[in-house]
């Protein structure tokens, strides 16, 4: 790649092709027009969110509304919808859901992706096609069975707390077992730390969930964030496996082969060579899974009934169109900006790696 770009650069200076002034003018006009169409919705929403007059509906277009203020943001942070929940509570629900699902899919998915990428075994092709086929299937098309199955799982809240705490402790032990040895012998890379941090956060989250006071006597798995999370893992795990496999395929095998010749066990190769090299892949796959969970709508909309469990995406729908009721559009604007900002910023930071992954199929073909 680098040699190609170098060639191009030298080529362009040698040729020194210049645009005539009218060509430049026409092209600039086209580019500016495209930029205007791209920016128009963004500017519209930003200017509306800054509008201080708290108008329920905008009646005119203006880039910077007179007397711009952040009032709408303050109101949205306090109480975005008619339900008595704050933005922070909604965001915490979305965060738990998205973070938990993507981290879980990543932890479980990375070893499977490694197996698909590096080992030959009977049934490999068949299993890979099964995983890929699931990623093509829309997750809306699995709501019916997931709802029915999760709806029939009901246990008393006391038992549920114990189950959660036990699961958290088990995961905590597993994480420490997988990460501590590498840290002690000093061969841990960012991948290991990432792995460890993710495991730690999930297990602590599970324990926290187990210790929190129960809201009702009977715990209905369907009507809980955990249930929605399980339903989301159903689609997120195959996606994570597939995405990670694509990245792992691009990591050269020579390093691993050298390590095996030097006597490293498969586990050592995986934890001490592949995981550190796969750090960008883990970050990108985790981020894509997180975005999916952060903006997940239909499962949570269908499953959850308690406003305390509601997520940001559900509230956004409550603020749009015919459901908006009396909610001023300036608040809708502020809310959608607050919802997109975290994922947009991370997307821009990881842009190079994400786009590399999206176009992987093209490079391979």
């Amino acid at each position: 790649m680098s040699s190609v770009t170098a060639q191009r650069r030298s080529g362009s200076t040698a040729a020194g092709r210049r645009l005539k002034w009218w060509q430049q003018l026409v092209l600039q006009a086209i580019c500016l027009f495209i930029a205007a169409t791209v920016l128009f919705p963004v500017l519209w929403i930003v200017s509306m969110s800054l509008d201080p007059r708290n108008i329920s509906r905008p009646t005119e277009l203006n880039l910077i509304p007179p007397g711009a203020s952040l009032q709408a943001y303050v109101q949205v942070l306090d109480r975005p919808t008619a339900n008595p929940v704050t933005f922070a509570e909604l965001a915490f629900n979305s965060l738990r859901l998205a973070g938990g699902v993507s981290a879980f899919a990543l932890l479980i998915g990375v070893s499977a992706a490694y197996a698909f990428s590096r080992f030959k075994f009977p049934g490999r092709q068949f299993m890979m096609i099964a995983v890929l086929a699931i990623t093509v299937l829309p997750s809306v098309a699995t709501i019916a069975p997931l709802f029915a199955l999760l709806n029939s799982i009901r246990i008393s809240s006391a038992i549920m707390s114990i189950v959660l705490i036990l699961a958290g402790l088990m995961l905590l032990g597993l994480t420490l077992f997988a990460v501590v040895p590498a840290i002690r012998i000093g061969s841990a890379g960012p991948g290991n730390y990432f792995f460890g941090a993710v495991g730690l956060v999930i297990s602590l989250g599970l324990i926290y969930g187990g210790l929190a006071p129960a809201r009702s006597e009977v715990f209905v798995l369907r009507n809980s964030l955990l249930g929605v999370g399980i339903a989301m893992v159903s689609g997120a795990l195959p996606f994570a496996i597939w995405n990670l496999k694509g990245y792992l395929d691009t990591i050269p095998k020579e390093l691993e082969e050298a390590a095996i010749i030097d006597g490293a066990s498969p586990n050592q190769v995986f934890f001490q060579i592949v995981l550190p090299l796969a750090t960008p892949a883990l970050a990108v796959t985790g981020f894509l899974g997180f975005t999916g969970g952060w903006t997940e709508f239909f499962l949570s909309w269908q499953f959850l009934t308690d406003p305390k469990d509601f997520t940001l995406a559900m509230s956004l729908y409550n603020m749009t169109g015919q459901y908006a009721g009396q909610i001023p559009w300036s608040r809708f604007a502020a809310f959608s900006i607050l919802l997109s900002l975290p994922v947009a910023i991370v997307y821009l930071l990881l842009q190079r790696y994400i786009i590399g992954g999206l176009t992987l199929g093209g490079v391979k073909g």
Partner: protein
Amino acid sequence: MATTNPELASPTARAPRSALYEGWKQLRTPIVYLLPALVIMMVVTFYPLAFQVWMSFTDYGVIKEEGKQTLNPFGPGGTTPPNYRPAQFVGFKNYLDIITNNPQFVARLGGNFDFWRLLAFNLWWTFSNVGFHVALGIIIAVLLNVEGLWGRKIYRAIYILPMVLPNIVVATVWRNMFDDQYGSINQLINLFITPFGLDPVQIRWFNQIQDPIPGIGLPLSYYAMLIANIWLGWPFMTIVATGALQSIPKEMYEAASIDGATGMQQFWRITLPLLRPAMVPAAMVGIVTTFNLFHVIYFMSGGGPLGRTEIMVTQAFKLINVNQLYGVAAAFSVIIALVLIPIFLITNKISRATESYDV
């Protein structure tokens, strides 16, 4: 390797079952690495899918005529609620109701359901969108690749914005932009036409039943969503095309212009053929994504007017969310999978995605 396994070193264990043992030794690592994911997927992915196939042959859900439901066998205090009855096997009834548009069934959905129209619209929606995405993507990539263009980096940074924003936000923002009373699109149109003495318009983008272009049976809301989704989709194609463009050696164009090829000829004979290997898989990804694009349809038109812009996934969601017909929804989901299988096979064939890495 062998030294790490004490059992292998002991001759008593090896002698009687060496062939089996060798096989196991080769398989052990992949199995261990796959096991967690396989177990989880068996429980949360494949079992529900199998359950879905069973559900599709039953009357699972709320049975209005009998005042019964099959969803919840657990009442307060551990007793079975009086309106519960187990789901009954109905054979292919759900499938037949869907594909033959059984009038009774259609009436239950509100009268606007027509399976074949829905399928045709979904396919047309997919291909019209992806067509625009690919065409615009290539044109803009070529435009940005013109040497000597000022501000290329700034444009590239701006053009990535639609990809960065979450789909759900894009869909809801465009929904409000196309609002008939307060939307910015109508305001923008008025900004241009009122100076010429024309009356301000109030286009009812999502509710107008009359087709805007007579002869083409597509409602106005389709065009509104097409505009929004073009905005959303072309930057991805531009990025793919830019990557491919930059790997075309400049010498090819130089040789072509020495031979007297015009710019247009160079575009059709060099650029397009060399972009093809990158664009075809990207278009395939786009087709699958757009076919299943829930957010734009559900949040913008909601399938309206009269259910004419409904696509398969939004209809499947409504069968559950509104009509509570779980069995029918399961059958519908199986049909979605059947429609997607050929698309998937073609994609897989073209991108060679499941082929081995090193062979």
